[in-house]
């Protein structure tokens, strides 16, 4: 079942068998509100008869990828992406090729690859933004990210991108695919370094906007209370509806809710991505023009209240530009404001 936070409308997937007859309390990680959820009528009797320890589903990738050999290649250029995928295939690895940032993020969340080759300048969402989200996501902790600069220039960035965005390795575009070989060796991939073996690269299973199934559910280490695995912070950029970090059951009597980020068939994903981008730009403008006010609000821990009037103009722009079905899902502007404030150290 889907439980929505009544305050900020963040949505969580909760297994009804873990909800007792009097419901269970959930704390929303996004806004910290505590709310009660009740099992649907039909699930009530099932809950009563459930076994003491409900089995928790294992991660269920949609295709039979071998995670130990799986690499997601996110490259805006069809040809160079195929070259990289072909080389990985020659080395005995499996690869999924995607061409934009949103697709990359969804594929990474679904397939939990061991390594991601991420072009920095992907369309729809920059590679470095994808990298930041991946690196904040606890369930993707073991995924290594190779960030690819598009231009062969040592001074392309004045600050190394690996330092900025948390990537594990930084490689320049023209060094692909051969530059990957030492990285793969170092990461302990089982390489076949002769050119015969190897399955062909596989196309992504689904387009970015139509994700058919929930992402793999991370099995919790202990029974209860169980944290819902999700990105460590609310994702700042285009993404499917995600359960924010640390959402947890607060009643000890409630057993593990096998909850996971909600990724349903979603025709509004592109509009949501647009809404998140607009929110980032509006908030960035507000902070740029009122830095002292923002800093003071961070110190006081009340950015949402202190900058409420500044958000008014942003809200009216949102009304004009964003589809009401997405606009009313959650408070994009306040969430983005709080995200930035937390990045700057607000408690």
């Amino acid at each position, binding site marked *: 079942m889907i439980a929505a936070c009544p305050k900020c409308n963040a949505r969580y997937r909760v297994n009804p068998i873990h909800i007792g007859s009097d419901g269970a309390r959930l704390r929303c990680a996004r806004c910290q509100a505590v709310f009660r959820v009740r099992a649907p009528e039909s699930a009530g009797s099932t809950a009563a008869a459930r076994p003491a320890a409900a089995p928790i589903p294992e991660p269920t990738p949609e295709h039979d990828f071998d995670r130990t050999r799986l690499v997601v290649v996110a490259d805006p250029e069809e040809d160079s992406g195929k070259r990289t995928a072909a080389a990985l295939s020659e080395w005995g690895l499996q690869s999924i090729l995607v061409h934009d940032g949103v697709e990359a993020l969804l594929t990474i969340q679904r397939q939990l690859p061991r390594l991601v080759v991420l072009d920095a300048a992907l369309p729809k969402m920059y590679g470095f933004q994808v990298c930041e989200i991946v690196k904040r996501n606890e369930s993707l902790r073991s995924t290594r990210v190779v960030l690819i600069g598009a*231009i062969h*220039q040592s001074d*392309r*960035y*004045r600050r190394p991108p690996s330092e*900025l965005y948390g990537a594990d390795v930084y490689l320049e575009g023209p060094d692909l695919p051969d530059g990957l070989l030492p990285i793969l060796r170092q990461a302990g991939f089982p390489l076949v370094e002769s050119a015969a073996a190897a399955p062909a690269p596989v196309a992504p299973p689904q387009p970015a906007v139509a994700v058919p199934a929930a992402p793999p559910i991370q099995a919790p280490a202990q029974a209860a209370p169980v944290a819902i695995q999700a990105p460590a912070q609310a994702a700042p950029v285009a993404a499917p509806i995600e359960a924010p970090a640390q959402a947890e059951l607060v009643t000890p009597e409630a057993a593990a809710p096998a909850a996971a980020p909600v990724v349903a068939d979603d025709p509004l994903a592109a509009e949501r991505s647009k809404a998140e981008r607009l929110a980032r*730009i509006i908030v960035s403008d507000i902070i740029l*023009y009122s830095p002292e006010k923002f800093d003071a609000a961070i110190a006081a821990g009340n950015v949402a209240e202190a900058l409420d009037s500044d958000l008014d103009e942003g809200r009216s722009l949102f009304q004009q530009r964003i589809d009401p079905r997405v606009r009313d899902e959650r408070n994009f502007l306040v969430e983005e404001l709080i995200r930035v404030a937390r990045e700057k150290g607000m408690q």
Partner: protein
Amino acid sequence: MSFINYSSREINCKIVFYGPGLCGKTTNLQHIYAKTNPDLKGKMISLATETERTLFFDFLPLALGQIRGFKTRFHLYTVPGQVFYDASRKLILKGVDGVVFVADSQIERMEANIESLENLQINLKEQGYELDKVPYVIQYNKRDLPNAASLDEMRRVLNPMRAPDFEACATVGKGVFETLKAVAKGVLTDLKKMGR
């Protein structure tokens, strides 16, 4: 569209400095104003509210010459860059003869640059213009900052049409007049074409 004053034999052209918030549009204008001969320029007028800053001034650069005996007078405008002041931008863009897009080179502002450029294209289209038909130059400002993206990256993202582009540091005036000369040249070339 340029306005021709037959009695004073002047052609008035409008150049708009466009770009995201705090990218340096106003700094460009202030530098141009400060370095222009007082005899050749008009008043600098700032139409500013508490949060919305728009700048306008006009000047008459004789050095740019005459077209069929008509002097050319350039009116320079900036738009408010913050994303939510779109109505003001539309208004200021009316009758434009040339556009300078001032991009903020800081990598953190790349998304704002893209949004502003898309907004420029939309607003021009509403008035029946196409960006590739209007005299148009790009300035990559704030090149001196440590978190500036590379020039190649800026070009790839913001200038696929290969419009004339310039690196700048408007606070010290670097690249400011080069940008202005390029857009003025485009406007004058267009005027001459129309005059034929």
